[in-house]
């Protein structure tokens, strides 16, 4: 026997279980402090009026939410984000799917394409935004446009199309949406390609033996097999595009408030600009609920499609 005997409880079953729990302790404590606490805070703060500094907050109940319902700029920003999302869903995902289909067959330089298409997604939104801001620049120097797009539009004779892309309220949001697609399609492409490669090649052969042409094969084999992957891509696109804002910030700043504002930017300016923390939290809760509803909606659709 050792001189120092360990206390008996160290050998008990309960302590053993506790040691098992200790493995998860770092993760659980970080999660509690940085996720659950803020989660509680955001609901709590959304019912208060607080400037972020003063030691007292005033309880206002649901007043922030009531004000939010009538906040025209907030709903406009929501609409702007929805517009970007809509373009991302159609343009970005269609291009991604077409590219994935093209790369799924035996063609040359497959690897090259795969590598290149994923370059925009690895860049940061700040870098992407600033590069494109410079390309869409509308200034003139010595009678020539120095923004790449306007310069070439002018050169090939499409003078009527030359535009101050990012200052014109008509085009600014669309430009942001297109750049967002440029940055994002690589993700969809990689995921859809991975999905396409898991489809059993025998299915295609069987379809061909049955006399299906390539359109019929696509419609009756590829698409049904791809539904789960497509839905993951769709949900990720929606959640990602709705919450876009660094790109907006780096492309147009906060200049065209009404026309290019997106919800996250509104939350940020309510907090950092006007110092209304409670109102900012109410926006966050409201936006979060909308996002949950949208993803539940897509989940229901996906279940329906699986049953069909």
């Amino acid at each position, binding site marked *: 026997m050792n001189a120092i005997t360990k206390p008996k409880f160290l050998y008990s079953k309960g302590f053993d279980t506790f040691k098992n729990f200790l493995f998860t302790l770092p*993760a659980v404590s970080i999660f509690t402090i940085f996720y659950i*606490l803020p989660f509680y805070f955001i609901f709590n703060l959304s019912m208060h009026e607080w400037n972020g500094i003063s030691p007292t907050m005033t309880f206002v109940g649901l007043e922030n939410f009531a004000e939010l319902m009538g906040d025209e700029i907030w709903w406009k920003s929501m609409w702007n984000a929805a517009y970007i999302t809509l373009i991302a869903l159609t343009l970005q995902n269609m291009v991604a799917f077409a590219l994935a289909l093209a790369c799924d067959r035996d*063609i040359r330089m497959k690897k*090259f394409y795969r590598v290149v298409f994923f370059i925009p997604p690895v860049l940061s939104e*700040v870098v992407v935004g600033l590069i494109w801001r*410079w390309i869409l620049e509308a200034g003139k120097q010595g009678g020539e446009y120095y923004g790449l797009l306007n310069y070439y539009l002018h050169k090939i004779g499409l003078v009527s199309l030359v535009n101050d892309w990012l200052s014109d309220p008509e085009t600014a949001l669309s430009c942001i949406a297109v750049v967002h697609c*440029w940055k994002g399609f690589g993700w969809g492409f*990689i995921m859809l390609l991975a999905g396409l490669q*898991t489809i059993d090649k025998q299915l295609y052969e069987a379809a061909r033996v049955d006399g299906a042409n390539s359109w019929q094969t696509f419609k009756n084999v590829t698409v049904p097999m791809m539904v789960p992957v497509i839905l993951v891509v769709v949900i990720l696109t929606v959640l990602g595009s709705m919450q876009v804002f660094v790109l907006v910030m780096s492309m147009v700043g906060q200049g065209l408030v009404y026309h290019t504002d997106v919800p996250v930017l509104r939350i940020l300016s309510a907090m950092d600009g006007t110092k209304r923390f409670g109102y900012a939290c109410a926006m966050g809760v409201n936006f979060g609920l909308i996002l949950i509803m949208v993803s539940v909606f897509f989940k229901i659709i996906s279940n329906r499609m699986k049953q069909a």
Partner: protein
Amino acid sequence: MIDKYQSIKTIKGIFIHTFLMSVALTCLLPLLWMVRCSLMTNRAIFTDKSLIPHEIHFANYLEAWSKGNFGAYFLNSVIYTTCVVFGIVIISSLAAYAFSRLKFPGRNFFFYMFVAAMMIPLPGSFVPLFVLMNKLGLINTRFGYVLCMINVGLSMSILLLKTFFDKMPKDLEDAARIDGCGRLGIWWNVALPLARPAIAVIVIFNSLNVWNEYILAQLLLTNNSLMPLQRGIMHFAETNSVDYHLLMAGLTIAALPIVGIYLLMQKHIIKGLSSGAVVG
């Protein structure tokens, strides 16, 4: 008949390659334009329109580097990325191992808590997080920022590793246990080395995420000397909005390392992403 079939195939091939090539060029041209502009003088940018500049000025990079204080920003970004990724791998693998192999009450509850966090989007969470960090006195500290970013990547990593551990055969662990390995020893000597493919995916995803993160860095790190690269570029762009050659040089400095690392490791990255996509 065969000739007709062949020619249709060729035409199809040309069509597909034109499509792929045009998209590939759309991906590359903006970047080439950026590099091009970064090598010219500010005056030449406005007068010279050829794709390859007549005079090449590498001095722009030096000027941008020192003027934008990129050295410090760079170092900060490297510190944050390594600390966060290291922390995520250790913490999430410990937790995932416990969720997969060890028994304790509330195991499923805690696991589904992490999964649920992934499903519930909390877009304004930076507001309460800022308030909380303020209360804890962690504003403007590297430690606070790193902890926040670890939390961001935790859920996904735990889910990924738990699915991986669940599929892992138990024999090796049993052998290690017979050889006298404790829980911690098995985790370190058996589970972690075997989980290398999953850990690679986690490292890739989270490195990208931390390196490119912007919003928390802006809110939590107002001190100039603590800012990561993304904040640094934005700051540089705000102060040098007329010096396009310097701005483009700064952007190239910021973009080049990540594109370089990506090109070096693209095989692993795309493989990891594809497997991650199928799991997700």
